């Protein structure tokens, strides 16, 4: 019982490798900079991870259903720009639902293409990444968007407010995580998402409407993106057209890091939240130990590769394989 064979250690490494690596990172960063685990810094990390995190929640549904969503970065730029523009035109109370409606339309369009027309999600969403970027630029005329009267609006509550001493973005992230976590784990819809991603054909043979399930996943993803755009806009009250650029890969990294398989059928909201936090803490730690900001792009890539490798290793039960 107490003795672990070499094989067991390999298995544990493969299964829990990410958490073990994360623990080493935490210890290393804490030794290098005592501020790393201070409450202020921890709160700061979670807060700055909230936008990424909210997007990752939606993408988790898409990934579990066996698809990809690479459009979330530019879709988030779109939401941000639209809500800022409409804020001054129709007021925040109308601007927010209008922005959600427009973003959901984009999600529905992608869901239609991938779900009902059965087009490859990589191609569709990669195309939408650039198409939505073009749409945003057309909408804004290429200019940055700013709210005219930054002091006279309540719109900043989503990005800058606090409730019970906790920043609102964190509360929104956690509330949404709880809600979506329950939907995924406890409702018939969640079960269908796993079935469709695990084996779409078998799901169809069990009477599950595969197209509709995929469609709804993209709709949820778009809803999350709109929420992220709202937080982003509210935090800065002004924005460039490219605010979400590159986020799609970070989001995907967080989801994979949490252990969702890119092949679909596995993953949980809780694991995604862990993935988001790991990514946030590592990026923050790199800054605290004095590395340049752009080093994190490289490190993020290394982490993704590590996560994917360990995912595959866990499936075959060992780190190395002599079979091609």
């Amino acid at each position, binding site marked *: 019982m107490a003795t672990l064979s070499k*094989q067991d250690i390999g298995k544990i490494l493969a299964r829990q490798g990410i958490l073990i690596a994360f623990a080493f990172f935490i210890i290393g960063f804490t030794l290098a900079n005592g501020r790393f685990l201070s409450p202020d810094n921890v709160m700061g990390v979670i807060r700055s991870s909230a936008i990424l995190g909210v997007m990752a929640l939606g993408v988790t549904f898409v990934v579990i259903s066996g698809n990809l969503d690479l459009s979330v970065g530019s879709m988030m730029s779109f939401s941000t720009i639209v809500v800022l523009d409409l804020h001054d035109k129709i007021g925040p109370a109308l601007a927010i639902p209008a922005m959600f409606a427009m973003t959901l339309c984009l999600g529905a369009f992608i869901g239609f293409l991938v779900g009902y027309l059965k087009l490859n999600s990589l191609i569709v969403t990669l195309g939408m990444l650039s198409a939505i970027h073009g749409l945003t630029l057309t909408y804004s005329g290429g200019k940055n968007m700013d709210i005219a009267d930054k002091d006279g609006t309540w719109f900043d509550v989503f990005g800058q407010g606090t409730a019970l001493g906790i920043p609102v973005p964190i509360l929104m992230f956690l509330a949404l995580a709880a809600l979506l976590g*329950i939907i995924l784990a*406890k*409702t*018939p819809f969640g*079960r*269908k998402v*796993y*079935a469709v991603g*695990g*084996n779409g*054909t*078998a*799901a*169809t*043979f*069990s*009477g*599950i*409407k595969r197209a509709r399930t995929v469609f709804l996943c993209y709709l949820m993803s778009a809803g999350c993106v709109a929420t992220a755009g709202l937080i982003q806009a509210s935090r800065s009250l002004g924005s460039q057209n490219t605010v979400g650029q590159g986020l799609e890969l970070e989001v995907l990294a967080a989801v994979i890091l949490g252990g969702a398989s890119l092949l679909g*059928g*596995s993953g949980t909201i809780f694991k995604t939240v862990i993935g988001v936090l790991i990514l946030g803490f590592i990026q923050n730690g790199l800054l605290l130990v004095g590395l340049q900001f752009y080093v994190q792009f490289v490190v993020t890539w290394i982490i993704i590769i590590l996560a994917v490798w360990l995912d595959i290793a866990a499936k075959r039960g060992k780190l190395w394989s*002599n*079979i091609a």
Partner: protein
Amino acid sequence: MTDQTPALRLEGIVKTFPGVRALDGVSFAVMPGEVHALMGENGAGKSTLMKVLGGIHQPNEGQIIVGEEPTVMTSPLQAKSKGIVFIHQELSLAEELSVAENIYLGELPLKSFGRVDWAKLYAQTDAILEKLKVGFNAKTRVGDLSIANQQMVEIARALTVDAKAVIFDEPTASLTDAEKVVLFDVIADLKSQGVGIIYISHRMEEIFKITDRISVLRDGQYQGTVVTAETNEEGVTQMMIGRKLDLSRAAVTHELGDIALEVRDLSCGKLFENVSFQVRRGEVLGFYGLVGAGRTEIAETLFGLRNPSGGTIHLDGNEIKINSPADAIAMGISLVPEDRKGQGLVLGMNCRDNMTLPQVSDLTAGPFVAEGAEIAIFDQYRDKLDIRTPGWKQTVGNLSGGNQQKIVIGKWLSMHPNVLIVDEPTRGIDVGSKSEIHNLIRELAAQGYAVIVISSEMPEVLHVSDRIVAMYSGKVMRTFTSEEVTEDNLIQAISGITPTNKVA
């Protein structure tokens, strides 16, 4: 023969995995010039044994002796260099390359500066192909060859080394009868050259046609070796499952109920035309025919996966339209599909979730799935169908084929369907579980279900069906009652020999 040194000898091979003794002291020897069958149910340890031979797994105990030399296998390539060659069920050829390139892949003859010596390559290849008497040459693109000929390429590959033993793993799985003859010729040829052959197959017919001796594994244990000429199918089956397999004709032991499903002149393009039949409650209607006769397509149409181009479907006397599997399920028509892993199950999901998948939207408490109700359903059908699994949390992919099939059957039974369609009920299932599934089908009929069984195995159709629909090329040739049917008239009917007008 016994005075000779075996081509390949296994001595006391033991291989354990955590919690399982996959191989428990397996010993047997293959003589030069012998065709040696290796048989056993799925999960008996055949694949593990082959992986040990190919160096993919290392045995915990025992040794492999090639000729007179104890050998440690480290990889399939190394095994090949020792003269042990595998011909796999699934071919591993590069379709875009020529036959010659495939045969010498990784060891192409070279000229200076690493250029390929094409002349030498083609000459060597053609020499080998000549030995095999095949109808293609070294330059043929592999993708243009039939499956059987691709298998010949694999065999040719084996002949590039001085093979001492060749292992065929279910080689006839995708071959036509004519192609099998060619394969058996090649095996006979190899045999006459003094090569030892291990032949793995489930097909008794072949085993008794071409092998000299038979070794049997059961639950990882070596059951013994018998001379083929001195045993029969029954004897081997008994060794494999430890008891006798009952394939006698089913007797109708209960009253039939009303007509549950009636199909009139149903057509679907050219897949099947003007098909009519009816199934009563309490009856098993068998569908028999060759692959491509349209049987599966009929099932798929009844299940809403295909749209019929003509004809009508009646359930309990009312005409119905089925546009999707969801429609079919709602009307109580269930399909246990032929491809269990591809169509029947989400392998990564647990047993319970698979079983309740079609009704998960109805098993709710408020907005949530009622997991207690799900577990109750799972427990009920686990007991009823005798599904052997540690518990509902077990991932379905880890179960044996027979238990997986029972999960699929349980999935539909728990919804109390009007009509249960079972396509290839025992494909890829070991002999022991086969008879359990057969009994189950008979029992379901006795309980009043209308059951349609589609099968490519004649003994199976004969065993479970009350009536049999014989199909040929998309048409119903004849419907037999169990009194009328014989193996001969059934074979005639499915071979397209015009139906006789004999009235039974």
